């Protein structure tokens, strides 16, 4: 696909984003921009990488993407939400003065009242305080597990899809086995031996059982992407494996990974609840959205507010990451530039 990239107006992520993107392209020298990502390969290879003038480097696809992102309001908003989540994870007392472990059974399941805007849960704990304090565990679990799964999965799956052959076969069969391990069994076996109170065993467990999914997706996209003309062209011109993978295939194969990973983030936070429910996940006195959602689920008929707030917080987090993922994906897609 070495021909000039389409510059039709684009309709996504809100009109503003499109405008900003356009401005970025023209303002910072549209011609150069177009030349960078794919077209450049034709001209400069096989001297790249190693050679090439230093001025071209910051103009790489990734730096372009970053420049786009900074101007994308979707990215900025989701970034702010995530920043906020990180802040309250680090210092929950900034916005909640109570103690999440102080519970009075006499107030169990009571609704909203002065000083307790979200009401009380089944044990009489303040839902607001617990929701704020739960962010630390849940965001850590969600983000770390997702990062781990996405990195491990896309590296292994990407390599397998790219090289094919026996490596691919072995890896694919390993993923088959991993897929087959029931989460309940895995959790009961692997986590019941752990006595540590920290979140890391739980995250490690999720990465261990979660990577095959991303690996499959990444492998599939890489297999498609490597058939593209520009990849064939670059390969014909002698581009190295790493260059092919990183510059040509990855940006075109990353979208499904981002989509799955951002949704999976939410499901990992929820999975943590399942593990706790099985008695092998995080244990009290740890506070997490997952534990609270799981507890609230039992009482959905009597006290829906117990579910609403932690689930709402989870939804907000997932939304922020989905938007972030969308923005990153758009920024990486040269066709949208």
């Amino acid at each position: 696909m070495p021909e000039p990239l389409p510059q039709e107006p684009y309709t996504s992520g809100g009109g503003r984003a499109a405008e900003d993107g356009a401005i970025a392209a023209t303002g910072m020298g549209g011609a150069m921009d177009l030349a960078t990502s794919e077209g450049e390969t034709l001209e400069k290879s096989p001297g790249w990488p190693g050679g090439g003038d230093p001025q071209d480097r910051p103009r790489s696809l990734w730096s372009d993407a970053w420049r786009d992102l900074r101007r994308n309001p979707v990215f900025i908003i989701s970034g702010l939400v995530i920043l906020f989540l990180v802040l309250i994870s680090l210092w929950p007392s900034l916005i909640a003065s109570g103690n999440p472990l102080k519970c009075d059974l006499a107030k169990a399941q009571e609704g909203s009242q002065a000083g307790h805007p979200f009401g009380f849960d089944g044990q009489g704990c303040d839902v607001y305080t617990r929701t704020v304090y739960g962010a630390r565990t849940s965001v850590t679990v969600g983000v770390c597990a997702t990062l781990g799964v996405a990195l491990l999965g896309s590296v292994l799956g990407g390599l397998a899809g790219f090289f094919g052959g026996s490596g691919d076969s072995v890896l694919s069969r390993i993923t088959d086995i991993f897929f087959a391990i029931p989460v309940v069994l895995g959790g009961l076996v692997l986590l019941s031996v752990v006595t540590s109170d920290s979140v890391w065993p739980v995250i490690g467990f999720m990465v261990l059982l979660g990577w095959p999914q991303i690996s499959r997706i990444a492998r599939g996209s890489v297999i498609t992407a490597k058939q593209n003309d520009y990849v064939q062209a670059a390969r014909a011109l002698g581009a190295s494996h790493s260059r092919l993978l990183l510059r040509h295939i990855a940006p075109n194969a990353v979208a499904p990974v981002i989509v799955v990973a951002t949704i999976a983030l939410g499901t990992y936070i929820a999975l943590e609840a399942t593990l706790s429910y099985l008695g092998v996940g995080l244990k009290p006195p740890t506070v997490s959205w997952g534990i609270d959602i799981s507890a609230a689920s039992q009482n959905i008929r009597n006290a829906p507010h117990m579910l609403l707030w932690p689930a709402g917080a989870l939804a907000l987090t997932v939304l922020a990451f989905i938007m972030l993922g969308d923005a990153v994906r758009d920024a990486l897609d040269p066709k949208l530039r």
Partner: protein
Amino acid sequence: MRGATHAKWVACATAAALTATACGGGGSASGGDTGAVLSSSWGDPQNPLEPANTNEVQGGKVLDMIFRSLKRYDPETGKAEDMLAEKIETSDSQTFTITVKDGWTFSNGEKVTAQSFVDAWNYGASLKNNQKNAYFFGYIEGYDKTHPENGGKQSADTLSGLDVVDARTFTVRLNQKFSTFPDTLGYPAYAPLPKAFFDDHEAWVKKPVGNGPYTVDSYTKGSQMSLRAWDGYPGDDKAQNGGVDLKVYTDNNTAYTDLMAGNLDLVDDVPASQLKNVRNDLGDRYINTPAGIIQTLAFPFYDDAWNKPGMEKVRTGLSRAINREQITDTIFQKTRTPATDWTSPVLGEDGGFKEGLCGDACEYDAAAAKKLIEEGGGLPGGQVKITYNADTGSHGQWVDAVCNSINNALDNDRACVGNPVGTFADFRNQIGDEKMPGPFRAGWQMDYPLIQNFLQPLYYTNASSNDGKWTNKDFDKLVDEANAETDTAKAVAKFQEAEEVLRDNMGAIPLWYQNGSAGYSDRLSNVKLNPFSVPVYDEIKVG
């Protein structure tokens, strides 16, 4: 086995794997009327449905419908009354002569004779048959031969203590004096078995044949058992309905929803989360009656940290830090009653239940609790971990509530935490291996309504269900004295004295007495739960 331990630990835990929380185990009574069939919730039995192999409530439910033993526990009072037994005589409390009533047959037409009982008991006691309730026959002479302990070789197939005198009479010789032995004979493990059981065992297990008011019409393992009233049933507790369809539910909440939608007639286990709505949903078609079940917290006395002198104060302090009233009201919606002794209200005053025997030690008093724990040297390691099995949903809830109560009383939000164990088997393994890091969940469902059954199996030195390994010479002595007593009132008084020793040492914290609760559709009437919290199916009227 040691001691009088005909006991079945609370089935809640066994039923755990079935996600049911009900407990139960007895059956019941009265006159005839064919007609409509009702449907009732059920759980998949864990073991094959052999009488001496069924140790949990779901299988027990069926056995109660298809079998009648020598005795039957009255569905109202729980008193053991003669059923197939015409008379049980003894002169020395050790050799019993049992006469079986005439006119009883199995539903396949075979006569119920003395031999039916002796064969069944021999089968149950024989090690090679893997019967999990074999220990029920432990008092009968010759048990050590048919069921040797510690890997010994089985040297006999039949109990030497059992002798058939004639078609309707047999004698039982025990290996020790046991005056209340006849009262234990209502337990399903003592049921008679037809020849078909031995001749074609596999077929029998697929479709059991018994001598009770119901017969098994069809049985699809894992999903449904259809029982039908047996017209030829000779007893006076003939089924008053056409039959019962037991439907397997994996979640009691689904069963409850089906009841509300009119797809099910009877749920004998209302899920905790629905207790708040139950009056709204069902009105007066909801029953909540006491059952012979008590929940306690046991301690690891094999751990010096919990056993050293002074710790009784800490244990009592913990007991006083638990606001039982509030927890039973809020978490259990009054389907539990705060415990004030170590027995159960179903025993009645005469039977040994003594309200308030625990006294102050079971009264919630945060200040006193704090003081006691400090005097006793504080919590071992600064923190109590209450261990429970997490594979049933509701244990976590009350453990958290107990912990919050303790934390609030001690003003330390990390004084107590729950310690879930993933599976029931693992929980039992850890108890067996003496690995409990602190107090742990314990529950007891009576086998028969005697105070002895609530104390001896649980707290006598090395008794079979003394999981905490509590041991106390005074307690043991008083129990021995009580067992030797022939006068019931005096025996009960001795047992209560023993219970006071238990209290003063706080060998286990009594939490609450459990009720049986059930809901039913408007097609049904005369629905009752027996003291074992099992519906009295034969008395239910449909339409």
